[in-house]
């Protein structure tokens, strides 16, 4: 059965790139979202196996979204995909339960490596 994913990013370009990578590597992208509010709503409805999540977004940013997703589902597999390279931000996301942090601009191979590791690990 295909692994189900949701892509959360306010950039249509990044959404398109991540969807392309995920679908090429065996994921079924069940939803995309452009902000945290939309992401939380869709997560509750669809319960994807994995979420890729941007940090800086309008309406509700990625960190707050991550915290909410983990409250809804403590087993949620969330991988941050962000251009923010500050160590403080990365550590904040790790403490809030992000499984990995991928820095933009990303390479397809790195994304795939991380996603496969996350799916293989227990919740």
């Amino acid at each position: 059965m295909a692994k189900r994913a949701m892509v959360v990013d306010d950039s249509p370009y990044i959404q398109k790139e991540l969807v392309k990578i995920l679908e090429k590597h065996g994921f079924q992208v069940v939803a995309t979202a452009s902000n945290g509010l939309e992401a939380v709503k869709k997560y509750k409805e669809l319960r994807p196996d994995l979420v890729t999540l941007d940090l800086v977004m309008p309406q509700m940013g990625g960190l707050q979204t991550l915290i909410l997703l983990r409250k809804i589902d403590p087993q949620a597999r969330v991988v941050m995909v962000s251009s923010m390279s500050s160590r403080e931000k990365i550590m904040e996301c790790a403490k809030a339960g992000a499984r990995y942090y991928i820095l933009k601009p990303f390479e397809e191979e790195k994304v795939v490596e991380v996603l496969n590791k996350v799916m293989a690990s227990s919740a």
Partner: protein
Amino acid sequence: MNAEYVNAFLVPAVEVLRKLAGIRVRRGRARRVEDVHVGGNLSVLIGLQGGLSGAVVLTASREVAWALAGRIAGPGTEAERDVHAVWTEVANMIVGNATGFLEKLGVREALTPPAILDGNGVRLEFGEGVENVVLPLETDVGRVEMIVSLVREAP
């Protein structure tokens, strides 16, 4: 403005453009300006708040912006909304990556989501005490400029 702060944006600007578009990027000579005029260009503005406050603007002529978007997202990238999306994300990556460099300089930053500026006669004013530094980047498809308009906040 402290040269290290300027470099914090310049280094990722060169890297992001090279990596995403597969082009050569050469730094031009930085210059200070009183006012920021980006009329006729496609520009993206990202606000910063923290140890440094102000904004960074990534700007290029529409011709260059379209050419770069095509190099980054593929030859079919022609529609305005697609070019806007790519250009916005380039600016987002540059400024986001800069936060890591700034953190090493002891400066912490929060960023706004990017805003597109597209039109003629666009002039930007950032208020008292803000220094505007224009950083030209010469690429294989033409000139891109990054305008760093920041003021150091009192600790």
